[in-house]
């Protein structure tokens, strides 16, 4: 229920995003990015001690400015879903990997390339595995 509110889906029910992040994503209605959802993400990142991370701050700034490219939405959905899974009792590692699987993103050195916008990875390239660097 809470997740439904945070995602504030403007079209299909949340369950229809089970393959979120795959190539079919573009054909689907994107979730609305809400201030409530962003606040939830900030709380989650704060709990992890990662809110002051430059790349995370850059992604939050992009979302607040209305950016809705696939990596922007992937970041938003990933953090909300991961946060919900951790509140349900999963540890970080399990929640992170389950969320990637839910998004259809393979867990590997390049997975951040699908969750962070290429401009952000370029700006903070030394903080990303080289496999995630934009070509």
């Amino acid at each position: 229920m809470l997740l439904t509110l945070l995602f504030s889906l403007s079209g299909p029910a949340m369950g229809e995003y089970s393959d979120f992040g795959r190539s079919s994503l573009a054909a689907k209605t994107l979730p609305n990015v809400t201030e409530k959802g962003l606040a939830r993400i900030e709380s989650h990142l704060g709990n992890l001690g990662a809110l002051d991370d430059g790349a995370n701050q850059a992604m939050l700034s992009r979302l607040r400015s209305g950016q809705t490219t696939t990596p922007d939405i992937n970041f938003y959905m990933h953090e909300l879903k991961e946060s919900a899974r951790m509140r349900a009792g999963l540890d970080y590692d399990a929640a992170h990997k389950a969320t990637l699987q839910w998004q259809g993103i393979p867990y590997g050195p390049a997975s951040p390339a699908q969750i962070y916008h290429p401009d952000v990875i370029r700006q903070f390239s030394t903080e990303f595995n080289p496999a995630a660097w934009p070509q």
Partner: protein
Amino acid sequence: MNYFEKWLTDLAQRQTMLLPKAVRVAGVRDKILGPRSDYAKIDVLCEPADSLEIKFDLPNLQEAQQHGYLDWAVMGMLDVLMTENTYPLRNVRLTIKGADIDSIKSNQMAFRHAGRNAARNLFEAIRPKVIPST
């Protein structure tokens, strides 16, 4: 006055502190950053020397050098060695004996943090300890 230039000049010219003995330390960076994580670990032998010397003596040298990880680890050590105490520790031979790389979580900055951690551990190891009297 250009304070940044003054600060840099001062850093290079000030007398070095002396390392009293050889010390082997580890430096680790292991941190969750939300949608990604950092991991890096180094093992460093620190010995007294007449000037700054850097050596690499580790089994996975090629892998560790591929993305400049060892250079970033050294820069991380210098971040701390040059500024943490009253005098910089410049006359030291640093031999990186080991580098633990995670194929998913490692990156250049993670190794810089690991280098900083190693240098802090070095200072902790050589810090005079107060021995309680009996």
